[in-house]
């Protein structure tokens, strides 16, 4: 199962589990703040070779209709995807 953002952040004594055990894949913060540059995919150029999908350390690129899609909530802007794209379909742009 892919970890995903939850609404509820356990904080009170009773919400905190009795054991160091909790639901798998429970996310409460994003990683978008890590970026000062962001990858932008040019879907025109993308041929769906999936190299970016495969090599993204954060797994934020997913397959979509023979091309790829990027989850900016969790992309850290490392630039690997751009480097892996042999079709020049990804550009890194400065964050605003």
């Amino acid at each position: 199962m892919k970890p995903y953002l939850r609404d509820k952040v356990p904080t009170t004594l009773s919400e905190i589990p009795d054991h160091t055990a909790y639901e798998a894949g429970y996310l409460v913060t994003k990683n978008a703040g890590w970026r000062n540059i962001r990858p932008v995919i040019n879907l025109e150029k993308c041929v769906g070779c999936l190299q970016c999908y495969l090599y993204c350390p954060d797994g934020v690129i997913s397959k979509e209709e023979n091309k790829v899609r990027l989850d900016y909530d969790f992309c850290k802007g490392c630039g690997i995807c751009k480097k892996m794209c042999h079709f020049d379909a990804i550009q890194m742009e400065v964050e605003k």
Partner: protein
Amino acid sequence: MAKEFLSGNEAFAYGIRLARPQVISAYPITPQTIVVEKLSEMVEDSSLQAEFIHVESEHSALSCAIGASAVGARAFTATSSQGLLYMAECLTYAAGGRFPIVMMNANRSTALPWNIYGDQRDSLSLLDCGWIQAYAENAQESLDLALMSYYIAEHKKVSTPFMANLDGFVLTHTYEVVEVPEAKQADLFLKPYVTENKLDLSYPKNLAFSVGPDHNTAFKFKEHLGILRAKEAIDEAEHKFNEIFGRQYTGLTESYHADDADYIIITLGSIAGLVRETVDKYREKGEKVGLLRIRYMRPFPNEEIAAVARNAKAIGILEKDISFGNEGTVYTNVNSALQKAGLSIPSSNFIGGLGGRNISEHEIESIFEELKNEKSTVSFLGIGGGEE
């Protein structure tokens, strides 16, 4: 019930078999080995269905037990002395993770100097690590504790690992008559382990995680509550145990003529038998002395101690332990109980049995005599008091 002639180690192994652990991982060390050898025989002869893992060290023994407990299996390990110290990291880990593992510890002196004989420095030096700590007096209690330990550890309100301590050699290697319950009865007493504190293939979990400054206290507080609540679970277990097996135990402590005594020896483990016999002799002479045997060091019996000490003129703590640079650890704990209860009576510490040194009846008498001075002192049996 069958009557058998068993050593403490064997009795404990019989009790563990009745508890049906699913994973056993242990590493040899004198004087614990027999319990593990017995269990491996039981696994071989199929009288026990369990995975028996030959691990490479005690750190691995307890790590393995933690892994097994983390998937919801009932796990057992056993060790002693150097082995207990070598797995210290995992002790704290198991406690903080609230894994209700049971461990038998054969109390033995710790190096240096090397010494394989019984004293209680090993377990008492790791008193703070979050485990329930019980001390057995004889082989029967060893067996019964083994069975009850899982009931208590796995209790929903408790979820805390359990260390059952048996004095090395004088208890682990000494044979005596033991009543061995039947498996059917044991199954009535102890149900299979059910928990949400586990990795679960149908409901994935992340376990044994980090918690930052904000919430860390909450986890530690719950861990503390868990072990405090063991007291209720112990009462519950002993009550049920008595119903099924007809033997009643007495909770965190056992009082023997302590309630109305002027002079009380507080002690733990197998030496209590000899103290009890000595109390009888004094009582025959009309002297009001008593024994309070500590059965559990954690949770600590603060109330029980205060209750008997309230009427006493002096108490003596006899322990096979020294916290270097201060005094015996049991003594420190007992003193705190008195202090919190506002009881200002003389209490003295008698440190004996280090490295397996014999504690004689005569020495026990001399403790009672010493208590009559109604002073607070710390002394080593056979050596005496402080520096001079």
